[in-house]
């Protein structure tokens, strides 16, 4: 039982991270119908910018932890968004009317490019970081297995919930959100009624990248090590989460992320750790085959 609760907590934390990345996939898919395969790399860049900023702050002597985390978060969101923006502008915009597969190949090319770009600039070795937030709550002290809910996990879960709330507000209440929903329905029509489609799409990428940057920061703090390759697996899992939740649906992305995180947590705890990545892929395959619309997605009908 205690073990179960511990895994539940761990899985949830992981799920929050996947959920934040999944939002980027789902938004982009919703609006231009392409799988932004390079999104995992954006997440990885977010993690790298975070580690660099942490180190810089350490050198500059910013010791007060909450301030440091806040600064890192702002810096990484800002700089990673530039990558998101440039990605769309350089690689995807020229292909907006091309076949889907062309866009997907571009995205894969971009993903390979960014991975190697970071590897060349920062080296291939794994990058460790001292724990930033230590300590935690301990439950069920009397039994032989102590359940811990670390402050870091509380931080991750709370931050994700806050971001989600803000994000939902943005989508539902602001002009940008309205424009975005309009573009999601019909890009051509949205352009005709005077919505700046290019800008809306750019902002979608920026928002997605900012979320992924926060996820990168969380990943870094949670695991303490990163390398240039983390974007691949995390990206695939987050994509699985987006598909599982129903691609195009924002609550779906969060729900899917949570489920994937939990499945991964429990799988590694009760089955074999080695096959945990296979588990994620298997879920992806099963969902796509048996329920391509995911849990909360709308059916995507092709009329003939």
């Amino acid at each position: 039982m205690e073990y179960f609760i511990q895994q539940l907590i761990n899985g949830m934390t992981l799920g929050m991270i996947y959920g934040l990345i999944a939002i980027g996939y789902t938004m982009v898919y919703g609006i231009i119908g392409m799988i932004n395969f390079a999104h995992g790399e954006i997440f990885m860049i977010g993690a790298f910018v975070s580690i660099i900023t942490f180190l810089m702050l350490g050198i500059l002597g910013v010791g007060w932890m909450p301030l440091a985390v806040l600064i890192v978060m702002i810096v990484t969101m800002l700089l990673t968004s530039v990558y998101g923006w440039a990605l769309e502008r350089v690689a995807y915009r020229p292909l907006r009317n091309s076949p889907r597969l062309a866009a997907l190949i571009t995205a894969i090319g971009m993903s390979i490019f960014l991975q190697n770009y970071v590897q060349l600039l920062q080296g291939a070795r794994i990058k460790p970081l001292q724990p930033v937030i230590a300590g935690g709550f301990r439950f069920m002290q009397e039994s032989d297995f102590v359940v811990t809910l670390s402050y870091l996990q509380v931080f991750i879960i709370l931050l994700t919930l806050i971001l989600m709330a803000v994000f939902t507000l943005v989508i539902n209440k602001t002009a940008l959100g309205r424009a975005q929903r309009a573009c999601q329905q019909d890009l051509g029509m949205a352009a005709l009624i005077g919505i700046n489609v290019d800008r809306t799409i750019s902002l979608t990428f920026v928002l997605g990248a900012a979320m992924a940057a926060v996820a990168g920061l969380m990943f870094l703090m949670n695991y303490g090590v990163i390398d240039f390759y983390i974007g691949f697996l995390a990206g695939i899992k987050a994509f699985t989460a987006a598909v599982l939740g129903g691609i195009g649906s924002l609550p779906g992305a969060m729900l899917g992320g949570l489920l994937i995180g939990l499945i991964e947590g429990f799988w590694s705890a009760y089955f074999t750790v080695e096959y945990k990545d296979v588990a994620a892929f298997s879920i992806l395959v099963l969902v796509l085959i048996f329920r391509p619309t995911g849990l909360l997605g709308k059916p995507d009908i092709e009329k003939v």
Partner: protein
Amino acid sequence: MATPSSEQLKMQPLDLPALFKEAGYVAVVVLGLTIGLVGFKTEDVPGGLDIVTRFGQVILATVVAFAGRVGFILLRERRFIPVLIGAGAFSAAMLVLLIGNIVDADQGVGRFLPFESLVVNWLIMLFALVLAGRAAWLWSHTRRSQFVVDREAAMDRFSARVQQGAKFFGPLMLGVAIILPFLPVADRRLLDIAILVVTYIMLGWGLNIVVGLAGLLDLGYVAFYAVGAYSYALLATYLDLGFWTCLPFAGIMAAFAGIVLGFPVLRLRGDYLAIVTLGFGEMVRVILLNWYEFTKGPDGISGIPRPTFFGLPLVRSPPEGTESFHEFFGLTYSPLDRIIFLYYLILAMALVTNFFTLRIRKLPVGRAWEALREDETACRSIGINPRNTKLTAFAIGAMFGGFGGSFFATRQGFISPESFTFIESAIILAIVVLGGFGSQIGVVLAAILLIGLPEFFRELQQYRMLAFGAAMVTIMVWRPSGLLAHREPTIRLYPHGPPKEEGQS
């Protein structure tokens, strides 16, 4: 589309604030892109990480981006001469520095190269050269710029000419390929590279069936390569079978894997299918890695037997009671023999793949593959079974992947899951994309370019994947159908050109 007349193209006065705003915008973006990852480098030091700053590079990159954008805007505004002079002078200066660097890396003018990375210096120089060249070209032509449609048509004509040309220089290349081992330049290194290139050509042709003809984006092609390699390795080491016995079996196993994968996923839409194949490739790798009892996991399988020349081993001293190749033919033993044999082996396998593809394209299945790529719904409406058709494409593509895998295993003598990562699939895909979907000659050129070149210029190795990614993006943006894509009908009513009354415009 009509070309705008020269009147319409009267020069507008330059709007300097707008120009600086646009270029400044680009510079700011480049600054944002580079400040974090270029400006600070994490260095491993005992007990953690340290930071090294490279702000000079960031500023340089920003300035170069600004200048480049200004040059681009000036071209757009038809100010050719300043661009020609500026970019020309800059590229000339860079070239001097670069050559100085080649002559003497430490002392000469090469020290003053702006960027730390030699490749970046070369790229900047080339970029400036292209800008200058374009300015010169536009200056000497009245046309303002080529239209996209024009370019597409021109590229298609060019690709068609390349394919036509392939009829002549194809056999020529084949001839060179055949006599290559006996050319004076053929040393061990060259032959090894040649084997590698031809292996990728074969894999590219195999994948071209799936991606180019059937239009199914397979991101897990390496899985079939792995299945082929492991089939051979396991059969050979466990059951003591020879290469030639195992080869068909490895192909069948790979084809079977293709069907097993294909069956559930073929209903999926194109991009989902791609992602699932990617997942499948990774799954195969993870299984190979963790099924220790059977595959020896990360340790890999060693001692895989080398191929024999119809039963004659290519070794110096054959095992008791057998005769080796050089003894049988009364030659003196040369360690190169085996390499040459491997080279011819893969060349033959590649040629079979090519012959097969060219042939099957003109058969009903091949046409059905292409039709499926065009429109699956229409296929169903004329009675083509989409599932079976896709399955055959998958299975046949996989089979060639499996053959390639067996060859890989016998050539290396050792395999491990390391060799079958997603990167491998991506490389093969990049070859197909760069060459142009469905273009056989394109695959050859792309493989030579992408595999051969970095092998010869070792310094390029670390940039290779970076270049692959960049090439895939550039080509898709520039010509989504692939660089040398051009489709010839598989059958013509008028093989000698259309009838007179009404020709194709």
